[in-house]
């Protein structure tokens, strides 16, 4: 039998039983769609988190006050119960480190902002001129904090886009005087809207000079020091230098924690990668189930068409021809199922992206390729058994069933 004839014969056989064919195509397409959508979800989660972390800034080394628990029990910690605070002078000292390109101390607190009778709760971030470039923020209007002595903050503020919208509407904000807590500040810049960033909504942020914020909150400690390393390769060196300097300044005690964005990112990447793989495993099971369904459908087809197989043999069909015809049918069912499933999956992922625009639910290429090829392979594999059974049927026995 010629190949085009085999294909046409298989196609006619498949379309001759619409119900059976629809069922197996449906099973296969659900399997493939599951792979596409689930991996899109898993990989989307991974990309979302990675994206959020990278938006903090690049080559970041972050210094937190206090020792993190990972070092185990340290006798020094037991004696000195309160860890030394991080101060602006600590931050200033870090500028000596050779692997550091720039840094920004950060203190955070909540306060109220008022303008023209309107009042609003806000988060105040006290920092320096380098804070905005280190965090990759962009200015929509005006400029950032001025370059000045870190201990002498001028009465200026940079506000988030949402605050500008709520307080000023369509009027210009830059140059206006506002009240934050008990201080009068002049607005020098407005941030571009960026949306949610790791729990801190920058659109509702007011950035002021660090010494001003400390005076406002009546404290001289820092929440974080953000350090930018000179390059990606310099991150470990920067981390070490930062640690050394602070240890020296804190009388030999390692009472700060230094984390690198890279390490956090890698951990999350690994975790979420494992999640995606797990999800892909679940999806693979659904594909195997779909394959078994195709096998059942083909077995039923062989049983239903026993008489026809007998006839074909009487008309001179060899075992190979029958095997080919049934395999071609199984392959067609799984191919169509795989394509329909792929389209369904992409549609589902598209729907997800429409519903959650911040969530990059794109199925990874490897998952799509693996899903499609697993569908085809299981379809063929599970089609072989029924096809062999059909090919081996005894012509007389088969004919009597007609």
């Amino acid at each position: 039998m010629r190949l085009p004839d085999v294909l046409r014969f298989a196609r006619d056989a498949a379309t001759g039983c619409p119900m059976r064919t629809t069922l197996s195509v449906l099973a296969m397409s659900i399997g493939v769609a599951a792979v596409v959508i689930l991996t899109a979800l898993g990989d989307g989660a991974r990309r979302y988190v990675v994206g959020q972390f990278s938006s903090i800034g690049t080559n970041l080394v972050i210094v937190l006050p206090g020792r993190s628990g990972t070092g185990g029990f340290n006798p020094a910690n037991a004696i000195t119960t309160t860890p030394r605070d991080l101060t602006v002078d600590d931050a200033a000292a870090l500028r000596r480190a050779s692997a550091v390109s720039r840094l920004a101390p950060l203190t955070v607190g909540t306060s109220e902002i008022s303008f023209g009778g309107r009042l609003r709760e806000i988060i105040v971030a006290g920092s320096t001129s380098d804070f905005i470039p280190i965090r990759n923020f962009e200015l929509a209007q005006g400029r950032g904090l001025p370059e000045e002595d870190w201990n002498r903050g001028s009465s200026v503020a940079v506000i988030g886009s949402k605050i500008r919208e709520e307080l000023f509407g369509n009027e210009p904000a830059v140059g206006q005087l506002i009240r934050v807590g008990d201080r009068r500040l002049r607005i020098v810049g407005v941030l571009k809207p960026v949306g949610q960033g790791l729990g801190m909504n920058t659109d509702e942020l007011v950035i002021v000079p660090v010494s001003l914020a400390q005076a406002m909150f009546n404290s001289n400690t820092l929440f974080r020091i953000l350090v930018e390393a000179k390059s990606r390769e310099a991150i470990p060196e920067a981390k070490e230098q930062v640690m050394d300097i602070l240890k020296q300044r804190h009388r030999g005690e390692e009472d700060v924690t230094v984390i690198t964005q890279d390490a956090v990112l890698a951990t999350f990447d690994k975790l979420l990668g494992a999640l995606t793989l797990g999800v892909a495993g679940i999806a693979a099971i659904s594909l195997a189930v779909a394959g078994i369904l195709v096998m059942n459908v083909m077995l039923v087809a062989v049983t239903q068409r026993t008489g026809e197989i007998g006839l074909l043999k009487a008309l001179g069909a060899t075992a190979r021809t029958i095997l080919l015809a049934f395999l071609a049918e199984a392959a067609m069912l799984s191919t169509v199922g795989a394509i329909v499933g792929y389209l369904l999956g992409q549609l589902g992922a598209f729907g997800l992206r429409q519903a959650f625009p911040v969530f990059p639910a794109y199925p990874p290429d490897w998952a799509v390729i693996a899903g499609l090829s697993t569908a085809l392979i299981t379809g063929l594999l599970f089609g072989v058994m029924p096809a062999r059974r059909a090919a081996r049927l005894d012509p007389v026995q088969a004919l009597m069933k007609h």
Partner: protein
Amino acid sequence: MALIELTGIERVFQLGDSEVHALTALDLSIGAGEYVAVMGPSGSGKSTLLNLLGLLDRPNAGSYRLEGRDVTTLSPDEQARVRSERIGFVFQSFHLVPRLTAAENIALPMTLAGIPLKERNTRVARALSGFGLENRADHRPDQLSGGQRQRVAIARATIMQPALILADEPTGNLDRHTGEEVVNLLEVLNASGVTLLVVTHDQAMGARARRQLVMEDGRLKHDSGQNAHAPA
């Protein structure tokens, strides 16, 4: 040389504990171009004989020579080739593939044999007009009358120009008039040189054959052509 030569054919079926001898010590020779009717009561071994001649079944003992070649020892694929090229079947219940059109059913043996589409189309067109089915080419079996279905089946059986046509109760599912037409058709084919072997219950139809075989209990009880043997 005889077209068909059976010597010492035995066919035994296992039914539970008992053995059923469907064919016992059968010797038979049929010449090319003969017209043979096989008759006998149910269970006499007619159908088993037909299946053996059509290479759909294998004997337990004995040899079957078709056109001088021992075909019992052939592999299943070689037997399929012999069926494809030398033997045409006509069944009582037509055995048409329901999802294929009349033309596709007629072309099926050629499709299976891998004959090119162009050649298939010319031969199917010739067969359709030869059997008066020109207007039925695109009809499916369920849109055809019984007589038309059997004509399609006969067209299919002859499309590969076989040497031997085996017909199993070809008029069994047809009314008298249509049956008559079908028999005439088969006889025309026989007149053109094809060997025709018909299994039938119908005495009148059996009487039309030039040679009658009567079977009983797996044995040949009567052979009208024993003396006037294989003239061709």
